[in-house]
């Protein structure tokens, strides 16, 4: 079994006219790689009506409806995160409730609010209630605020994780840009933070550093925007880890942190 924990699909109400081709390409590449489950989130309208990382309430609702539609179209291949914008606590509750009813299995936090902000405590409480992991968008070692996102780094995610030790937090795309060495030092002693290996970065030494920092028990395989780099990392991990350790990264750790029964065997 191979579980991709960091997946995005597009839909018709985004700036991308090629949205359908990109979705099809993901499914096709997934078949070649051998992906059993794509765990996906949609970030609003991907900037068409509201900013990608600051989705409006309407775009949050639309994105979650689209996510549930994609899951229903691929019930044996796709699972979904509920997207929330913590700046709207009332909507957080209602969207997660709809997500639970619609079969979603996790929560996606973009970069709408600092990860250690008290507004995220309510999100984490709901995650604990439903045994949902929380996938947090991360800028690896934010040195300054970037336009378009209130980027958090691992230090802030770890503050939130320490306040909610019963919730699994996924530090997004260690290869997605920024100083991953900084992130790996930060998460080392916070056992409920797992590292998602996705991102276009394929730096030599990065995977060794991930294993050294958190061990194979806290690594999750994923792709995000580049499935080719995901495949390359998978191949390299086969050289780096024992078969049992590799199985943890491919699926074992994901099965452990998502709700029971999320990934039935084919």
């Amino acid at each position, binding site marked *: 079994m191979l579980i991709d924990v960091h997946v995005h699909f597009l839909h018709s109400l985004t700036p991308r006219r090629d949205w359908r*081709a*990109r*979705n099809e*390409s*993901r499914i*096709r*590449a997934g078949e*070649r*790689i051998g992906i059993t489950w794509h765990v996906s989130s949609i970030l609003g309208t991907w900037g068409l009506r509201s900013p990608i990382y600051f989705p409006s309430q309407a775009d949050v609702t639309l994105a979650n409806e689209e996510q549930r539609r994609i899951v229903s179209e691929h019930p044996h291949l796709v699972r979904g995160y509920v997207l929330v914008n913590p700046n709207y606590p009332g909507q957080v509750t209602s969207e997660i409730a709809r997500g639970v009813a619609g079969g979603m299995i996790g929560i996606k936090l973009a970069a709408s609010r600092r990860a250690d902000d008290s507004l995220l405590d309510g999100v984490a409480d709901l995650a604990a209630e439903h045994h949902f992991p929380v996938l947090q968008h991360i800028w*690896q070692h934010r040195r300054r605020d970037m336009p378009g996102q209130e980027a958090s780094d691992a230090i802030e995610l770890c503050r939130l994780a320490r306040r909610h030790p019963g919730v699994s937090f996924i530090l997004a795309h260690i290869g997605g*840009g*920024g*100083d*991953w*060495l900084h992130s790996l030092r930060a998460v080392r002693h916070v056992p409920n933070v797992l590292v998602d290996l996705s991102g*276009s*970065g*394929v*730096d*030599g*030494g990065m*995977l*060794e*550093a991930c294993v050294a920092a958190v061990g194979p028990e806290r690594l999750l395989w994923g792709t995000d*925007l*580049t*499935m*080719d*780099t995901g*495949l*390359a*990392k998978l*191949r*390299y991990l086969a*050289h780096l880890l024992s078969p049992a350790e590799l199985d943890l990264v491919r699926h074992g750790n994901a099965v452990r942190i998502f709700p029971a029964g999320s990934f039935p065997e084919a």
Partner: protein
Amino acid sequence: MRIDVNAWLGGYPWRKVPGTSPDALLEAMDRTHITRAWVSHLPSVFWRDPMEGNPWLYQVCKAEPRFRAVPAIQPALPHWEEEVAHAKAQRAVAIRVDPMFHDIDPSGQPMRDLVAASAQAALPLMVAVRLEDGRQRHPLDVAAELPAAAVRALVRSHPSARLVVTHADRGFIEEVHFGSTPDESARIWWDISWVWGPPEDHLEHLIGAIGEARFLFGSGQPLRLPETPGARLELLDIDADRRAAIEHGNAEGLGG
């Protein structure tokens, strides 16, 4: 058969990188089915005189037939022309220059003189757009990325110049290719180390738009995982002949 045109030997100053020795590179090549590698000396990119790394590189390549040397030239230093002649005598497969790391104008007169010298020596000239993602570089690693305008200027500066550009992404490649005449763009080759596969499918798009003849198999190892270009080709819908051109045929046409 695979020829990796973008491989390095030696340590990197800005972070710990495993697998930088000749033996480790050979092991990685075996693992990823790479037959030959065009190798450059990584430490000397950051030396005041990068040409001081060339003797070691020639020695290593002489001892290992699977390696082909890509020695460095710094055209703002006196008597650099002698190093080009020496590269030819040492059967180098190409020569490289890293103007942004040497703080020289990437399209200035010394660079144009080097382009002319490489053309006269019938040696392709290799340039890298970047070595690492700009978002993660060391605070003191401040050299700018190579501008696309410089590549256009260099290929225009000599009618028989041949450029091999590594670590370029889709936008960079398109800007240079469609900003050049057909004759100019036919003298530029791009490695696929930084060109995304699915679901964005940049590589598939570029091959359809400008043809497989322009692309070379390159990894950037050991700074980047050597598994990457192979994974990229594995996920690409392309017939065997076109795949072979990228994997080795185009590089062989350049002499490698």
